[in-house]
């Protein structure tokens, strides 16, 4: 059984619903900095770390590209493969901006993922607490926070 685990409990109900509706195989909900708030389907911490870092980097670079061509931001990014597709999009919530990366297989389609992603964003926006004021992120704090997140997500 593939598990859904969350660092911030308010993300759990919307995520579980989204995974079921969209038939997603892997989902990670993270901040634009790559800090993971919730995940579904990742068996190993190392996979999740790699995917979240790459996903955050893609969103950041496409955002920079959007600015260069005079757009405020691009919508969702979609990559289609032979067996898997990837949907990568950011959204605004009271908790702050979030990035969601969804990996799906042939049992669903990008159209269905997009439809249910809209509902997922609405559910996240309704459930999210207000953002806390945060100080500058120090390297030591970041590492400790990352360690705590992975311990929560993978029970180590």
């Amino acid at each position, binding site marked *: 059984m593939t598990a859904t685990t969350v660092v911030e409990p308010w993300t759990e109900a919307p995520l579980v619903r989204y995974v079921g509706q969209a038939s997603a195989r892997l989902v990670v909900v993270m901040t634009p900095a790559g800090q993971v708030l919730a995940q579904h389907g990742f068996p190993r911490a190392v996979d999740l770390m790699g995917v979240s870092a790459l996903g955050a980097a893609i969103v950041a670079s496409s955002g920079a590209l959007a600015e260069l061509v005079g757009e405020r931001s691009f919508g969702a990014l979609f990559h*289609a493969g032979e067996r898997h597709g990837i949907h990568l999009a950011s959204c605004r919530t009271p908790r702050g901006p979030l990035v969601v990366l969804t990996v799906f297989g042939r049992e*669903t*389609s*990008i*159209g*269905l993922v*997009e*439809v249910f992603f*809209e509902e997922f964003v609405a559910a996240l926006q309704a459930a999210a607490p207000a953002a806390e004021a945060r100080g500058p992120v120090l390297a030591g704090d970041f590492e400790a926070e990352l360690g705590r997140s992975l311990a929560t997500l993978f029970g180590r």
Partner: protein
Amino acid sequence: MSIALAKALERLSRVRGVRGSMFVAADDGIVVSQELMEGVNGRALAAFAAALARKAGGAAGATGAGRVRFLQMDAAAGTLLVAAAPRDLLVVVLAERQVNVGLCRLEMLRAAEVGTR
């Protein structure tokens, strides 16, 4: 090409009772071209019609019925029609229950031919 698709949908939308028509990418469930009445969620319609076509195709394949060419789903509040078109496209129509399905089908098959050009 996109103008031809739009014209084909315009013809379909003239059929009495049709609330929306669209070309949909069969594999992705994404709208290629659409003509919808206000209040019809095109993205959801495209995604669910493609999913329905895929499931029906799987069932037809498993029972040896061959390729599905036309689907009709009657629901309490309307009718959904899906026709296979070349280039992995689907012609999708959402209509009222009282729609003339024969006429709709004829126009859908004509629209599907546009996809071959």
